[in-house]
């Protein structure tokens, strides 16, 4: 690849402020994407090594901060792994509370995404409405756990705080409100031309590719593949709670949107059921500080898809090795496939379509091999260029 004139464009974040700077190199032929090379890493902190330096309890708070949007998914996966190594089980009531928190997180995460995706296609009104309504979920988190983000509910052996009987009517009231709003947003997504024009037939991921490229979560389920860790490999209390796994077969961004919208409504049902059938009893058991030698694989269905942790213990108070594979990384090969052969103008919405752990892709480098040009764009610049389309 010869280097023609390199045009560098000054860095400029977009609005709203969603920047987890990462890098993609796009090879383009005019307006068509010919090749995509991911080169991630602006967000690489070195957390897996840090896990080995901290005790198991300290690591709960590190795991939580891997991601601010799905922090509970990480702590659930982590505490489950350590509990398995210790050969203890969280008490039944704790498992139900874990489900409630996890589903509330799914609603907040998907709602956040709907807002971001709306913003991507210029539909700022929808973004504002959805994020306003999402505040109700954060209110519930604050009531239950004391914080809106990073609720620190999970601990090794159970949960740290109880969902008292007095909280339940408030939760139900919040859910009733949310259900009505979410049904309204679902109708908008299904009928609003602005959305349909930008999402139908865009970002196609055929089922065969989805499987070969090991996609996960709503991205996978929007290509018709019915896989969901909550039902395939149940954890917490999911084996006792009836729910539907949502799939759509459109294989495009609209399908991914519909999957997430319907999953939010399904989450509401799950929380209602769980609040209703929550068993009495203790919420945590005491566990020793030293974890006997062993290795486990722990999986949960985070809002973005399958989250997998691998833990290896060596009889001390600190892990020997802790590995985290978050769902976004699992979807990047599929993302590259979706972008190939597509229009440069569609890049922002296709990227947003996999619900990347927060715009893991703000900075993108482009190479036009025919014209011998190389340049760097940010998401905002890309959107501005194609705004008329």
């Amino acid at each position, binding site marked *: 690849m010869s280097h023609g004139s390199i045009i560098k464009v*000054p*860095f*400029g*974040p*977009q*609005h*709203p*402020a*969603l*920047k*987890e*700077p990462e890098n993609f190199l796009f090879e383009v032929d005019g307006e068509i994407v010919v090749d995509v090379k991911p080169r991630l*890493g*602006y*967000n*690489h*902190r*070195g*957390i897996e*090594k*840090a896990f080995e*330096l*901290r005790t198991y309890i300290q690591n709960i*708070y*590190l795991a939580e*901060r*891997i*991601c*601010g*949007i799905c*922090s509970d998914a990480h702590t659930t996966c982590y505490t489950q792994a350590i509990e398995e190594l210790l050969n203890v089980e969280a008490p039944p009531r704790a498992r139900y509370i874990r489900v409630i928190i996890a589903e509330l997180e799914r609603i907040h995460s998907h709602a*956040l995404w709907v807002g971001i995706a709306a913003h991507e296609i210029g539909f700022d009104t929808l973004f*504002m409405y959805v*994020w*306003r309504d999402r*505040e109700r979920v*954060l209110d519930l988190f604050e009531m239950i756990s004391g914080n*809106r*983000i*990073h609720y620190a509910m999970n601990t090794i052996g159970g949960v740290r705080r109880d969902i008292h009987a007095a909280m339940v009517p408030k939760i139900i009231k919040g859910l009733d409100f949310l259900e009505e709003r979410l049904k309204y947003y679902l109708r908008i997504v299904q009928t609003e031309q602005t959305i349909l024009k930008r999402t139908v037939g865009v970002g196609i991921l055929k089922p065969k590719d989805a499987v070969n490229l090991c996609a996960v979560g709503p991205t996978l389920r929007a290509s018709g593949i019915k896989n969901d860790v909550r039902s395939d490999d149940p954890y917490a209390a999911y084996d006792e709670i009836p729910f539907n796994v949502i799939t759509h077969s459109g294989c495009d961004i609209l399908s991914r949107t519909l999957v997430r919208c319907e999953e939010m409504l399904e989450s509401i049902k799950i929380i209602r059921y769980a609040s209703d059938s929550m068993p009495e009893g203790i919420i945590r058991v005491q566990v020793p500080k030293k974890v006997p030698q062993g290795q486990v694989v722990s999986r949960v269905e985070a809002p973005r898809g399958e989250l997998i942790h691998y833990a290896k213990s060596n009889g001390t108070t600190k892990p020997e090795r802790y590995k985290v594979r978050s769902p976004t990384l699992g979807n990047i090969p599929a993302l590259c496939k979706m972008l190939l052969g597509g229009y440069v103008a569609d890049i922002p919405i296709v990227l947003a379509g996999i619900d990347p*752990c*927060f715009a893991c892709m703000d900075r993108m480098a482009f190479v036009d091999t025919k014209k011998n040009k190389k340049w760097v764009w940010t998401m*905002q610049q890309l959107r501005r260029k194609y705004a008329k389309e």
Partner: protein
Amino acid sequence: MNLFKWARTKSPWIIHFNTGGCNGCDIELVAALTPRFDLERFGILLEGSPRHADVLAVTGPVTLQVKDRLVRVYEQMPEPKHVMAIGTCAISGAPFKDCYNVHGGIDTVLPVDAYVPGCPPKPEAIIDGIAKLIQKIKGSKGHGKGK
């Protein structure tokens, strides 16, 4: 009060930059724009380009990969400019202190004018931080030159 300062303290334009955090602070900053908190009614705008911004709001613990870009964004801003460190990571890098790819708090790279603690700070705290920064700008003698 000179016109320049008046205009600036009336409506600071903020540019946001995430240096590799978990995004908790970012989504609370964005939430500050949404109807319940409505940052924009104070005239505060989240700007796109550093060349038009007065305040650089930084989140995250500054990963090694992002450090140079952070400095470059700061350099592109016109004087007088101010920096806000939002969240514990930005203040000291604390949650990720023992991570090998993390540099540390923002003030190890840039001069910081306001610190908003929290993990993450609530939107109200972020707005409070911005308000305090405005007060600081109002009270400063002459133009605040960054180091």
